[in-house]
């Protein structure tokens, strides 16, 4: 049993690897876009414009209140029906996860910027810095410490949530696993392998976030 199990894993490896690549591509693209979008969101939320803040609040609440899965279905099945545009499942997954991730990272960035003493902003302005310079040189570098640990936690959630992409037809590592199980009935073995796969990607991230949090709260 043991040797046949290992053998099965060994022969499935190329297939699982392909699926893993899909999972990782979706995750890392989504993480990259979430970070860019989140920083932009956090900065914009710290500007005094009421109008802009209202629009961004609506965006935030939409992604907080509606499950990611519903968003996936809405884009994947709804867009062809309502707008006649069909979005490939991979693109659709990255798009939804990025928009959702950006709202999560964005709230972290907004909070971190908001928690900085007001005097930092005033001191920056008083030497003639422009708005963008103020954020780039003074505010964001200081907020970075406060926002990195919670942002890493959002990253691990994006990686785990990427598994929902199976439901709109992305052949990711989970889908490949299911296909193998259908053929071989080795569910414990395959799901065990999937468990290890996600664990070894997400655990180092959350460990890093804990270490950074501890180190930076001491300083």
């Amino acid at each position, binding site marked *: 049993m043991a040797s046949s199990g290992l053998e099965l894993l060994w022969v499935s490896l190329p297939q699982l690897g392909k699926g893993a690549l899909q999972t990782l591509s979706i995750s890392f693209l989504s993480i990259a876009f979430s970070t860019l979008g989140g920083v932009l969101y956090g900065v914009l939320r710290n500007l005094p414009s009421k109008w802009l803040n209202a629009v961004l609040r609506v965006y935030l609440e939409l992604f907080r209140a509606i499950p990611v899965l519903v968003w996936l279905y809405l884009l994947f099945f709804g867009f062809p029906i309502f707008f006649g545009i069909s979005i490939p499942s991979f693109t659709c997954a990255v798009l939804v996860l990025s928009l959702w991730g950006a709202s999560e990272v964005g709230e972290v960035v907004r909070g971190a910027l908001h928690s900085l003493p007001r005097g930092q902003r005033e*001191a920056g*302005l*008083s*030497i*003639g*810095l422009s708005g963008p310079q103020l954020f780039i*040189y003074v505010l964001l570098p*200081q907020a970075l410490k406060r926002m990195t640990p919670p942002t890493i936690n959002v990253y691990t959630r994006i990686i785990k949530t990427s598994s929902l992409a199976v439901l709109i037809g992305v052949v990711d590592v989970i889908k490949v696993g299911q296909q193998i199980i259908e053929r071989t009935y080795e569910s414990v073995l395959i799901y065990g392998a999937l468990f290890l796969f996600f664990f070894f990607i997400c655990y180092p991230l959350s460990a890093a976030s804990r270490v950074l949090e501890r180190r930076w709260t001491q300083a």
Partner: protein
Amino acid sequence: MSALIEFRGFNKLFGEQQVLDQVDLRVESGEVIVILGPSGCGKSTLLRCLNGLEVAHSGSLTFNGRELLDKGTDWRDVRQQIGMVFQSYHLFPHMSVLDNILLGPLKVQKRERREARQQAEALLARVGLLDKRDAFPRQLSGGQQQRIAIVRSLCMNPQVMLFDEVTAALDPEMVKEVLQVIQGLARDGMTLLIVTHEMAFARAVADRVVFMDAGRIVEQNPPEIFFTNPQTARAQQFLEKFSFVETLPKKAPEKELERL
């Protein structure tokens, strides 16, 4: 001669509350103005309006003959010419002393690094902190941080410096080192507007004392007149409160024990 800075009929409201009420103030180039008054009288707000950190309600404010309350005012340009130092220093904690000082000259004024650095080091030497150029703000005492904050403003080569209660957050023994720096600037003929509660310092450094109460300028006089013979009852009251501590009788511990 036209004034360097001139407030005319200047008003500022926070919601319903009028914090500056018809303020008229002329400041000539090279003058040292000390603004005194009770807490909440609007003296800090007056400085902050001059730096564009607060927006005026109505009236007129000119700097070098230019109206600052116009919509098209380039505050970034004005702020390079009117430096401001705050009560709690507000150094940038993630930067070394030298980077704190050079941020404005390099990024705002686009000056050459070597030239700006030379000036920064000369200024640091002047305030006695050249050896701290690579330190971070958290490694410095309050008095040292405040002197760095002054250098950060000076390195922009402003025409005017605003000091907003710059010694109020300092331990008594560090007040002196900061006041000496300001006194040096006054001697060099720089235009200074100083909000402070240090009466003796005000007397020593001011060309003119401006006394404010409830958003209005109540009295403006040279320090000798203001401190020895204040013209208004409100100013007299204010000065009495400050002399209260000095004129207290010495404590007599024996008597208190008897009463017990």
